């Protein structure tokens, strides 16, 4: 059972730009109503029921899924870039097994300088 997770977004953006995040998880998403043709035994439900996206530790988007989501679920959402930082997406299984993928987003202001998440004076 392969467990590939993909996360894709534009990595260098300007300030206040709306960024599209595309994610893909490899999962069979067993619905819990399918039967084995020979024995008649129902396969137990096993899906990804929760997806959480965080931007510098703050939750920006959440998805609660039920058995109606397709296998190998694709998900695309948007957020607004304010400062550079970490984008984390976490997938949680029915067995509470969580997997995550993270990426770094670089945000530039008008002069082309990076806006860092830490505010400090030199």
């Amino acid at each position, binding site marked *: 059972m392969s467990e590939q997770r993909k996360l894709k977004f534009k990595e260098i953006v300007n300030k206040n730009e*709306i*960024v599209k995040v595309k994610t893909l998880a490899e999962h069979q998403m067993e*619905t*819990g*109503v*399918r*039967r084995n043709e020979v024995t008649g035994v*129902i396969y*137990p*439900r096993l899906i990804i*029921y929760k997806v959480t996206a965080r931007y510098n530790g703050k*939750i*920006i*988007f*959440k*998805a*609660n*899924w*039920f*058995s*109606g*989501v*397709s*296998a190998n*679920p*694709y*998900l*695309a*959402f*948007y*957020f*607004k870039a304010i400062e550079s930082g970490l984008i984390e997406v976490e997938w949680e299984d*029915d067995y509470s097994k969580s997997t995550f993928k993270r990426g770094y987003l670089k945000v530039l202001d008008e002069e082309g300088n990076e806006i860092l998440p830490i505010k400090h004076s030199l």
Partner: protein
Amino acid sequence: MKTVLNRRSFFGLLLVACSKLYLTQTLANGKPFRDRFQAYRQTFRIEPDKEEAERIVKNIVNNRKLVPDLVKLEVPDIAEDGNVVPVTFSVRCSMKKNDFPRRVHVLGMENPFPEIAIYEFFQGAGKAEVSFRCRLRKSSVLMVIADMSDGRVGLEKKYVDVMLGACS
């Protein structure tokens, strides 16, 4: 023999009454109450129930007035494979202060489990647009309900013709 309601019998009666109430509420006519306990792992066969789907919608809307043109839904009219139906929806709002969708429900009205997904948005998140892929058992109505944080509700539905249904 005296029939006195002592402490033990009182608690016994209370337990019986509570369990009776609980069972009649949750296991109405021998079926699980799907719109509340759907999140639990289900390992038994369930047939789709249209009335139950309508009851779920009623519970979400909760006697509020529907705002027209709040949700925009993009689904193909004819889906070749019911296992992979691409869905894109967007909510018309500014995402500032109180003008963002708290929750967006996606429902397939003739699925064994009508609720497909619930998406939660947060303030200042840029844009309330999501695209994903869902399963549809047969040709049915796909419904998107946006529950805004200031109490408004928007509903959008579209009939999708499914060629090959998902065996869910």
